[in-house]
């Protein structure tokens, strides 16, 4: 079981090798960092940055995250059913219809409540 994941580790090794080569290459080929107070200021269109950068973010993003948790996780629950429902027959189809119905009702509810509106 674990053995079938060995190739993934090899691919990761190739990726790390690549990153190492790049980082080393950059160290040897790149110029040494210039000293200067302004050199490493964060880029903000040439103006001095003002105000906090890690501000609290709009609640819409959290709403999107919740929507993702609700719908994506539920959709993933459909996968085991998707490959097995042939053997369940009619009962499996009807049961899953109920499950999907709940999902759709949830989507319609979010829609009506305006949770899908990105703009305030």
């Amino acid at each position, binding site marked *: 079981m674990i053995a079938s994941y060995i190739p993934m580790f090899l691919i990761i090794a190739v990726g790390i090798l690549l990153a190492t080569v790049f980082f080393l290459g950059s160290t040897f080929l790149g110029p040494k960092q210039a000293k200067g107070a302004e050199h490493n200021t964060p880029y*903000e*269109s*040439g*103006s*001095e*940055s*003002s*105000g*906090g*950068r890690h*501000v*609290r*973010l*709009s609640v*819409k*993003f959290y709403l999107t995250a919740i929507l993702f948790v609700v719908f994506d996780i539920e959709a993933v629950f459909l996968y085991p059913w998707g490959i097995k429902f042939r053997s369940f027959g009619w009962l499996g189809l009807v049961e899953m219809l109920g499950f999907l119905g709940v999902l759709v009702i949830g989507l319609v509810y979010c829609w009506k409540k*305006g949770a899908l*509106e990105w*703009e*305030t």
Partner: protein
Amino acid sequence: MEMSEAHAVLASARRARVDPHLSIKTYDPEADMMLLHFGPQHPSTHGVFRMDLHLDGEIVVKATPYVGYLHRAVEKLCEKLSYVMLTPIVDKNDYVAPMTNEQALNMAFEKLLGVEVPRRARWLRTILAELQRVASHLLWLGTFTLDLGGALGGGSTLFLHCFRERELILDLFEDLTGARFHYNTHTIGGNRHDLPAGFAAKVKQVVAVIEARLPEYAALSLDNGIFKARTTGVGVLDGDLALELGITGPVLRASGVDHDLRRDAPYHAYDELPVNVVVGHGGDCRARAEVRFAEMRESLRLVRDAIDGVPEGPINGYKPIRQPTMAKSTGGQVYVGIETPRGELGTFVIGGGDTPTSPYRLKIRPPSLHSLSALPYILPGQTVSDAVAILGSLDPIMGEVDR
């Protein structure tokens, strides 16, 4: 979701025509807002324009434009140089439509000095102005889609194609003046260069090529679903506010105000070559795009009509100027406004003074500056993406804004 308090304040400020900068103080900008400096070193601020955006999430709550990064003291320079030396100086103001800069300046000087322009020169100026309008609008279309689609996307495809067509017009100008961009072809009393042989045929060919390709560009922009979605209802500027802010040109006409100096106060040969003024409706980015598209078609038509009817005669009615000191003014003040691709470019000159060979004071009224003044009113409530689209749709040229 209901409108936040910030938006309500701004909406009422806009309705009441109050300066949004003042009314914004009713809530704390430190609280949950991000102050984003947008420019001067930004890919889509059309040069060195800067606006400070207060963002609530991605919604702009307050926008403060800053200009002046490209100030070159052109007006002061105009007080020091003589009248005939000034044409190439103002060429650099609106660096997308240099022809119209020259025309505005020289028309003001002609009025001040009481010089009559011969008919042929006036026709020539009309043709040059309209060709320049097409070139300028083409560049606007390219950069606008660049703002909407990015330099690494469909925007750059249209951008490069628009540049290809603009090249054709620049080639014509090169034929005429020898210069591709800063022409110095207008002088007091007329033009410096007469039409070269075969120019009319070339112009007609170029007009035909561009007219044939405009539908293709409309398909890539105006008729494209994403373009529609990005521009319809975005940055709505109503006509009253536009008039109050002194906005002119396509931006004003897109807001439904029927105003065009070419028809309302004809100069050049516009009294003989009437212009069908394009008026849009809606005042959003899409209306501004549609107006500019229609203006391109109208200008091409005008050029095609005018190029065959150019009257014979001299191209300069003034005494041949050999020395900078030959044009002298004893005093008086004049204002001349012409319709450039961006709106009313005004030149106000006071003659006389200690040195009669140079203006006592020269003031340029750049149309882009007035267009930009709409930003604090129309940006709030829009997203950052829209802010870029709106700025692009106003077609500001920082060279003339900052002078």
